[in-house]
């Protein structure tokens, strides 16, 4: 199914509704590059998003798309992947979507380890709804909704993912596009659930975590790090200050969801007809 002549242009070029200067533009470009680089044609890819600025991404590229409900990109993606294991399924949406409204699905996705990729546009803010604190907004950051400063500790998605022994845990930055393309490609290739949390500056509402702020802090994880080393990965995950490691933090050797599930072995559900004989057998069990 994989063609080798796919180019980023196959994914098209569209006007966006994003602010000029927003990190989403770079991320969109990286996504097209990553997918085409993997030889995936648009029709082989299904993007399942939530709602938010980030969640608009697939509107701006050629691909199959389900833009569902805020926070619910992951369950829709899970359903889709179980229905058709042959699709490349990607969830792309914001920090609010995935760590806020959809937090429970994030935990479940880490546990299930379905072979799909989650790319979180982590701008530390609720962009589309105009700047309330998100789960990754720093404690004390003042917003219109948090006039006394965000009162909670931000979530550390990397640490949670490593703690849950996630399949693939990486962090990128839109200011490092080549690096990011590589991360996305590794994530998509990884057999199991892959998390790529991407620092994506929001120029309109997050005046703290700016491009410069990230640029100054992001430090690429070097080859000396063994992503199979969970302890080391946790150390990296907890580093969030003057220096923040980006790259692949962790990779576990868990088998992907359903590797041994007989019900998933017969291929895409859309191609399955009712097995009338089996059904008759089932009916007879009630005689």
């Amino acid at each position: 199914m994989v063609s080798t002549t796919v180019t980023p242009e196959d994914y098209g070029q569209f006007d966006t509704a994003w602010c000029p200067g927003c990190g989403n533009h770079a991320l969109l470009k990286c996504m097209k590059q990553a997918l085409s680089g993997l030889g995936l044609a648009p029709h082989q890819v299904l993007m399942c998003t939530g709602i938010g600025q980030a969640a608009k991404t697939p509107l701006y590229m050629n691909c199959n798309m389900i833009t569902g409900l805020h926070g619910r990109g992951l369950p829709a993606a899970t359903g889709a992947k179980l229905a058709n294991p042959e699709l490349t399924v990607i969830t792309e949406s914001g920090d609010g979507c995935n760590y806020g409204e959809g937090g429970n699905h994030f935990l479940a996705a880490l546990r299930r380890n379905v072979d799909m990729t989650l790319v979180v546009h982590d701008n530390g803010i609720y962009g589309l709804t105009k700047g309330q604190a998100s789960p990754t907004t720093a404690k004390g950051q003042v917003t219109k909704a948090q006039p006394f400063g965000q009162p909670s500790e931000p979530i550390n998605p990397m640490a949670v993912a490593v703690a849950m022994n996630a399949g693939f845990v990486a962090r990128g930055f839109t200011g490092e596009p080549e690096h990011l393309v590589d991360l996305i490609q590794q994530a998509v290739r990884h057999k199991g659930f892959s998390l790529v949390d991407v620092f994506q500056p929001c120029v309109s509402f997050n005046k703290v975590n700016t491009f410069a702020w990230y640029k100054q802090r992001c430090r690429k994880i070097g080859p000396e790090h063994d992503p199979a080393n969970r302890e080391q990965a946790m150390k990296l995950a907890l580093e969030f200050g003057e220096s923040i490691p980006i790259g692949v933090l962790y990779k576990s050797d868990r088998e992907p969801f359903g590797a041994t599930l007989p019900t998933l072995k017969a291929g895409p559900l859309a191609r399955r007809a009712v097995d009338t004989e089996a059904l008759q057998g089932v009916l007879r069990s009630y005689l």
Partner: protein
Amino acid sequence: MPDSSIVILIGGEAGQGLVTIGQLMSKALVRAGYEVVVSQDYQSRIRGGHNTFAIRTGVDALHGPCEKVDILVALDAETVALHKHQLTPGGIVLTGEIFALTGETEGLNILRVPFKKISPKAAHENVVALGVLAQALCKDLGLLEELLRQTFAKKGEAVIAENLAVLRAAHDWMGTQSHGFACMPPAPENPGERMMLNGNEAIALGALAAGCNFCSFYPMTPGSSVALTLAAKAKAMGTVVEQAEDEIAAANMAVGAVCAGARAIVPTSGGGFALMVEAVSLAGMLETPVVFVVAMRPGPATGLPTRTEQGDLNLVLYAGHGEFPRAVFAPGSVEECFYLTHRAFEMAEKYQSPVFLLTDQYLADSFQNAEPFDLSELPEIPGPLLEPENPGQYKRFAHTEDGVSPRAIPGFSTALVVSDSDEHTEDGKLTEDLDVRVRMVTKRLDKGLGLAEEAIAPGYIGEENADVLLACWGSTLGAALEARERLEESGTRAAVLHFPQVWPLNEDQFLPQLEGAKRAVCVEGNATGQLARLIRQETGFRFKDLVLRYDGLPITAAYILRGLESIL
């Protein structure tokens, strides 16, 4: 025709195995050719408390549960105290020897079964009850023996032999007792193959027959057993059954799965469904055929989690923000559970809409006999379009005359299938064009016209222009039919109008009947008369009289008749 049925009520604590006894006995009766309607009453606990399994059986067609008891199998003293007043004259009480009965027992025909003596191993005590029951009904043991052989097949011959010995000993012991209980009339000869299953099993089977291959759910009584049945048959059928992290995930997973080519069912109960309301709206917007099963129990909130009610009609009718079409089915029997589930999938796929099945704890847990389901009778259900003609031009939400767009599935062609929960253009992308908005609203609502045209007509049973018309929906059917018979016997011309589909309503199909009746009474398992209000909303017809029940128990014919007494 006076009631010739016999009711065997098995009562005791959770964990005492009364469901095992009840199920085996029911199945033996069904196989013998008898009619069976079971009602189960239990509490929200795993051990202890007071539970009952009531088997109503007989030769003539049976519809609903009833309140009398002919044979009371009391696994504890409380059962006798709680149910002795239900005993019919000549009824018998079978209890163990170990416990002291409290309260008045005079006049009761009590048989103390020497469980311990007949069955030295506690594990076989349930089999004792079966043997004793068979003898009381003057049944030979053949069918029970066969059943026990099947039940213990995996445990080996020794276990089977032990059980059969106990069964016979119990049967023989009872043969020595003079209890005076009349034998059951003989069953029809050569009854042929007959199924015994409960409502939720029938829903699961209906789903499988409709090609359902995906079930996402979060456990909730009394909805779970639909999923558990599918799980139990998954090995044979290949059904993907996934327990979700919560109901929101269950519903959204189903939407994702269907968009990617699955045929999906989402079983739950009212409280769980309440969490799916946003996803229902999503299914409406993405025009995704998902079948939701809402097995009702008394609310609000946790309410009475193991009892029955019909309180969630309104919730299901209006679940979801914004406006979009839907259909709501409400089976009246186990058999209808099967066929209406199939119909639900048919309508869902045809009109690309969320469709709902409303059942309740009574029906979910009610084992009934049913004719073997005839698969060849079932209509074909349209499937999605795997390979659109012009993939490059494909538009997921293309305008058509009836509002139904060809539904492609991602990945099976080069067509891009784009679905946005925002208002969208024909090709599925977000739009802020308000003219497009209007066209899309119209498109979606147009599908509702098709659903209305295909609405199943309510069933009318009885003569025209009856004196009393009992209108009802869902599981109340049986009780209403029986109440009708009782009324007719007492000289009242009575009819039943049963809604197996409660939305959309098509007034031509039932308004003449309602208006033709001298007195129309709406019978519902809730406190506010939800169907009655709906009918008034849609037709203007107002029920002056309602018989409502909301104590957690299923409506019976006797309950309806008592209700009518105060009305008529």
